[in-house]
């Protein structure tokens, strides 16, 4: 029995009467790779926002690494090892690429010496393939580079769990492969990964298990091949 690292139970979120999430459960085991899929507007990003503390769920609980974090502020969740990327890259635009990476190194990991921070930042930049761009502004980066920066900033927090929210949207096939290789490397280092993604090829290649959310409710949770053959999943994706 492998220990659970993240366990969300009955997560519910309403916006002015609109039920964005209705009692969603999700478990992530240590070292596991899970794919979270669902049509646009099904509540995936709302769910991620609830997991990471950007939104407060109206109901339900979230256990992370043995602690109840349902009421824990976002920054403390990040410090404890729950990192995320944003679907639309949100770099710190007034800083250089390297300074972006240095923020979580300083605040989430707690490094204080400028030398240590700078060295650690360079290691991470090389890891995500942005070593050459360290001194540039994020304004000068391409889409794929911005997504790598998102990943790098999440990694700099030394996470136990990484939630990757559509890091591959709009990328070419070879770029998708590049990011997948990176995620696999991170997973091999022991980071559990929750991948929210629309590109089915990537999800099928990457995930050990797939969770499907449709209209704010979980409709499937299981092995990729089995889930994809489920009738209601097919219907949600392809229509009647």
């Amino acid at each position, binding site marked *: 029995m492998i220990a659970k690292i993240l366990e969300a139970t009955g997560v519910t979120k309403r916006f002015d009467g609109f039920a964005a999430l209705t009692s969603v459960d999700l478990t992530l085991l240590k070292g596991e790779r899970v794919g979270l899929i669902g049509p646009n507007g099904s509540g995936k990003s709302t769910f991620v926002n609830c997991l990471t503390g950007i939104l407060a769920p109206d109901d339900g609980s979230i256990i992370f690494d043995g602690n109840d974090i349902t009421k824990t502020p976002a920054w403390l969740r*990040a410090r404890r090892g729950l990192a995320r990327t944003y679907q639309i890259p949100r770099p710190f635009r007034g800083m250089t690429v390297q300074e972006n990476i240095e923020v979580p190194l300083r605040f989430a990991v707690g490094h204080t010496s400028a030398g240590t921070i700078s060295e650690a930042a360079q290691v991470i930049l090389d890891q995500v393939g942005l070593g050459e761009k360290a001194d540039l502004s994020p304004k000068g980066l391409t889409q794929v580079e911005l997504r790598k920066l998102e990943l790098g900033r999440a990694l700099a927090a030394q996470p136990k769990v990484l939630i990757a929210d559509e890091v591959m949207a709009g990328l070419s096939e070879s770029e998708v492969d590049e990011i997948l290789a990176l995620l696999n490397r991170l997973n091999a280092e022991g980071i559990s990964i929750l991948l929210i993604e629309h590109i089915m090829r990537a999800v099928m290649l990457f995930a050990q298990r797939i969770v499907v959310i449709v209209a704010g409710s979980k409709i499937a949770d299981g092995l990729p091949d089995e889930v994809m053959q489920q009738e209601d999943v097919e219907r949600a994706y392809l229509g009647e």
Partner: protein
Amino acid sequence: MSRQALSTPELRKPAPISGRSRSGLAIMLIGAALLAATMLLGSHIGEYYYLATYTILQFVVLGTAWNILGGYGGYVNFGTAGFFAIGCYTTIVLNKMFPMPLFFEMLIAAATAGVVGFGTGYLTLRLRGVFFSIATLALAIVLQTLIVNWSFVGGARGVYVIRPAISGFFVSYVQFLVVLMVGLAIFAVAVAWAVEKSWIGIGLAAIRDDEAAAETSGVPSLRLKLIATTMSGALMGMAGAPFPYYVTYVDPATAFSLAIAVNAIAMPLVGGTATWWGPVVGAILLGSAQQILTVTISSAANLFIVGVLLVVFVTVAPRGVVGIVRGWKRGRK
């Protein structure tokens, strides 16, 4: 990368250590020179120049204080006059109840305004963007209403304050006030400089760029914003504390003047909000221009020039003088 993109200030590398101690030294040297000049010139210059210098220095403090929250953290405070007035009225109350040296009055004013800053921050910092700004404006109006109805401090009529006798060293009380203000300006700039270079400044910069992303990077945004509102408020209160002795008559309309709130925002914007020296440059530039216009044209032109310069800078040089200087330096390299 194109050359043009390389010339933007965002592409700078973090300042090396030697650069840091250099700017620290610069603050000290400029301050020392100012102090020496004030003391040496003594009675050789007219009272008016002291009064003008005092006003400019006061705005160096206010602009610098505003910039800690507004420039570094990106939270625009419209209530500077409220914090300034807390300083003024703390002095007035203390002066009536327990007379003490001005230095202690300033400390108590700083504490009072700091507590109000903390409280305001706690209540309003969950509001983002323009909502926070409106809340700070409301704070100033609420405070003004309180003062107007508090007859102990003169109410709407205002109150006269008698300058204490001055001894020794100084030729006049105004000279003493100017020297005091030089000291306070150095202190405020040093505080801003320390904040900017520390983890607080880095965290505030992350909040300014993207608060949600900062939170998910481990930045405790509420805590940092509270530190910033408290420090900013305390410095504004300190700037207000000597004011009653400077004008000798204070009424709510003066202490809560719109010009204070507008100048405290305009000066950092004109100078540049990204660094500690931006508000200093802005205050000296705008402050001097206002003084000169008041004397040569009319005091009504005072706020007019602020408006014109603000429009010019926001459209032509949104990063202020700091941005212009940086671009020029980079262009020469």
